[in-house]
């Protein structure tokens, strides 16, 4: 699913090298827990995998496509079609309703739009299905802007958004920081159900090592990243 080969990355030509990964793979359908100290480059890796930034050298391939060789436009489209991303906080466009936030990726990708419509009958019904799955039945019908939701609710809406249209790869960056232990377990359970059902690959970035046991594989970025 993911194959990283000899990459080196820095944010700026004068900045220090953040990532130097000789080799790293993730198999299709794997549920990966990625940990590492703060500032070690986890979010940077997410930027690389989603094709937002390019490495100085080396190649990244996702889902059989060498994204480091694609043009900027093709990479943006690739991300739209194949990758669902969820952030640590502030995941939603404040002026869109929760439902519109969930369906947002579908306006940038015909592939995910068709998939979503196929899965749920229509875009809107698939979006409310996912919201219901995230135990947000009441939120699905809200027509007011998303900023009125609680942080925990916002994160679940964001999870639904990353899942809509079944992209092959889901990357979530510290999604559980605002959730208590119980809610966190529930969230992971639901996320796994959806991910497994659609045979997606999941990269779960987190500091919370207690969660690691639920995953297929636990990776520490410090182990694969060789910076002096």
């Amino acid at each position, binding site marked *: 699913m993911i194959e990283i080969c000899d990459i080196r990355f820095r944010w700026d030509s004068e900045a220090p090298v953040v990532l130097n990964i000789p080799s790293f793979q993730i198999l299709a359908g794997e549920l990966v827990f990625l940990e590492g100290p703060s500032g070690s480059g986890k*979010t*940077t890796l*997410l*930027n690389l995998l*989603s094709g*937002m*930034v390019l490495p100085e050298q080396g190649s990244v391939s996702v889902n059989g496509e060498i994204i480091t060789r694609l043009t*900027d*436009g093709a990479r*943006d*489209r690739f*991300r*739209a*079609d194949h990758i669902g*991303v969820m*952030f*640590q906080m*502030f*995941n*939603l*466009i*404040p*002026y*869109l309703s929760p439902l*519109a936030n969930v369906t*947002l*990726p579908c*306006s*940038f*990708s*015909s592939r995910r*739009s068709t998939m979503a419509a196929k899965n749920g009958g229509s875009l809107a019904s698939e979006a409310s299905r996912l919201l219901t799955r995230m135990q947000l039945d009441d939120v699905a019908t809200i027509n007011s*802007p998303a900023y009125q939701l609680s942080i925990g609710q916002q994160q679940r809406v964001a999870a639904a*958004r990353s899942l809509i249209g079944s992209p092959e790869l889901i990357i979530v*960056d510290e999604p559980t920081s605002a959730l208590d232990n119980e809610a966190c377990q529930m969230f992971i359970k639901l996320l796994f159900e959806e991910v497994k059902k659609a045979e997606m690959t999941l990269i779960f970035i987190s500091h919370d090592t207690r969660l690691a046991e639920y995953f297929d594989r636990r990776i520490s970025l410090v182990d694969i990243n060789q910076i002096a």
Partner: protein
Amino acid sequence: MKYMNVGSIIHLSILSLLNRRLAVLLSICAIAVSVSLIFTVEKLRQDAKRSFADTISDTDLIVGARSGSVQLLLYSVFRIGNATNNISWRSYRSISDRDDVLWSIPISLGDSHRGFRVMGTTRDYFEYYRFGRGKMLELDGGKPFDDVFDAVLGAEVAADLGYKLDQRMIIAHGIGKGGFTKHDDKPFRVAGILKRTGTPVDRTVHISLAGITAIHVDWKAGAPIPGMSISADAVRKMDLTPRSITAFLLGLKSRLGAFKALREINNFSKEPLLAVLPGVALQELWDLMSTAETALRAISIVVVFGGLLGMLTMLLTNLNERRREMAILRAVGARPHHVAGLFVTEAILITIAGIVGGLCLFYAGLFLFQPVIEDIYGLFISVTAPTVNDLMILLYLLAGSVVAGLIPAVMAYRQSLSDGIIVRN
């Protein structure tokens, strides 16, 4: 294969604008006010010019004492300002008797009635004076003056003072509203009232030249001669041929002869005279006003610029707050130019709303104030659709809004590239 279409960008920008209603509304208002201002300035400019040009028609030459041609035009036709000198009746007679002259209208100014100017003339005025595109003066009621003490009122004089036919009125010496010596021993009678013309004629009281002479027989050097008072009836029996007049209008038998007549009148040996072609004098007047026009235009451009600047400030202020929004859009597959497009679209939408608001404001104001302006300034403002010139102004404004939108757009574009997917706090 561009999936994100223009429609969804517009949809996103509308929702985003609605989310910031107050700031957006203020920006729209700023632009609306500037649009209505620039339209008002253009309208007044065009209509003032048209109104001036429509005041006199079919007159070939205006003749007065030697002074500036604009000054002559202003006092003889527009009743603005005063003549420095009069011209003698004999000079007038000898020029109006020329073979190439078809008609002549003598004008004698210097008195007023409750703020309206009094003009002495002959009945030829009602026959030959033309305004607009060759329109004749028409009476709303009554007849042209017949008796020495008959007056014919312009429409506005009658309307303003509420005068009816046969009403008596007193002419004051000098020009202005009251406080002057009055010719109260010789009251006039309203003999006729003219129809509205939309020109200074509406604001003029017309009496015969004999009438002018009559009220001044017992006057000398602008004041009544002490101990001498001649009654109105006695005056009627006197010879009331004026000794001088202020100016006169000439209609020639052939337009082509105007230049020859002009040259000869300007070289008139017995008295220094000035003849001008109305069109040329008007042009000189435009030239004089062009500085003011340019200044007015510059001001409206600055105001429009201010409107755009207000919008730009608003867009830039929340650029930082919106970084996360841009990152989210990028994460779900938006291209950097979609992000940029969002800002440009917002700027265009605000400007379009501002233009629509400005047009509403302008036309509402036009309907509301048109009668007032006509009443107070005698300037008839026509309610017309925007001209090509106006549309060009709007087009420039839209182009300006695109430029204003491009500034935050380029910044957001750059930011979204350097931020990566996730904005760090």
